[in-house]
């Protein structure tokens, strides 16, 4: 039997390892166990762990509700949030704004930040992970390395160029470019080579030519061409909606 929540766990794993989100204390590290061993971390436990990623859970529940899907960890919902699919089209922008104000109630965002953020929700924005990072993720310009974090936090994709003996592999991928205004960011037209890492326990087999998705510089999974195109489409859609906000000066 496969692991029921493997995909959701893969995308959540690396930011949790870095302490950015998800389970804390003794529960941190359990997702890794879930993915790599025949351990005591079963599907029910993994589900509870995934529920501790409060932001991701809010988006997943929103997508599920908008599509009449009972389980927020349904494969179609997980695919919509992390990769992007047609389920996103059924979520209304006002629901996205409500979700953002929900973060205030949870003590995860100040009211002022929520107000400013909802002012920058365009009617074409959808609850894709790229929205959470690129439209909500605050960039003040005062914090060193924040644009690097911004790039690493979005889900990247690329083609494997070469696989070394160690954990590093070279991929060809499109990076973000922005001239100090995050709402005017776009993907570079040409792919460039960059290094990402893989954990052989998580990604045991990989070869040149494979397409991969990566999060925080670590390979999450090997993806199909269709998945890569959808990830690109929904990331572009987020960026396009952000640019429209910047060009119009206010939301539509």
């Amino acid at each position, binding site marked *: 039997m496969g692991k029921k929540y493997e995909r959701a766990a893969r995308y959540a794993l690396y930011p949790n390892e870095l302490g950015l989100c998800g389970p804390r204390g003794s529960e941190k590290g359990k997702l890794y166990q879930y993915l790599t061993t025949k351990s005591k971390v079963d599907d029910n436990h993994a589900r509870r762990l995934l529920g501790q990623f409060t*932001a991701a859970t809010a988006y997943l529940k929103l997508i599920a509700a908008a599509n009449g899907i009972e389980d927020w960890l349904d494969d179609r919902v997980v695919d919509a949030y992390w990769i992007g699919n047609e389920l996103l089209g059924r979520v209304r922008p006002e629901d996205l704004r409500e979700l953002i104000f929900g973060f205030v109630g949870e003590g995860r965002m*100040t009211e002022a930040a929520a107000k400013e953020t909802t002012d920058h929700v365009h009617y074409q924005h959808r609850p894709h992970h790229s929205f959470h*990072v690129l439209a909500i993720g605050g960039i003040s310009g005062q914090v060193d390395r*924040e644009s690097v*974090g911004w790039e690493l936090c979005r889900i990247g994709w690329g083609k494997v160029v070469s696989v070394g003996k160690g954990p590093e592999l070279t991929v060809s991928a499109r990076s973000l470019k922005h001239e100090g205004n995050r709402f005017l960011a776009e993907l570079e037209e040409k792919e460039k080579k*960059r290094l990402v890492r893989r954990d052989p326990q998580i990604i045991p087999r990989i070869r040149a030519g494979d397409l991969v998705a990566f999060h925080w510089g670590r390979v999450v999974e090997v993806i199909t061409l269709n998945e890569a195109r959808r990830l690109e489409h929904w990331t572009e859609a987020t960026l396009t909606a952000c640019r429209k906000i910047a060009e119009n000066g206010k939301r539509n």
Partner: protein
Amino acid sequence: MCFGIPCKIEKIKKNKAAVKNGGKVFDIDTSLLPEAAKGDWILVQGSIGMKKISEEEAKNCLAVLDEFQNQGERRKK
């Protein structure tokens, strides 16, 4: 939130803190972190402190950020 940059609190008073990041010190809002104290490592998003993290997590995260930033700088050369 899965996005934030680790910074160390240098000074804190009520809901305002001076944090250090990359050699620079700047002010942020810590109203979401009522228990934050001098010396704590926190994740900063924009100009808001989002959550406390351990020193080990902060250093691991900064190492990943540096690794990627250094790649970009090598590509420019």
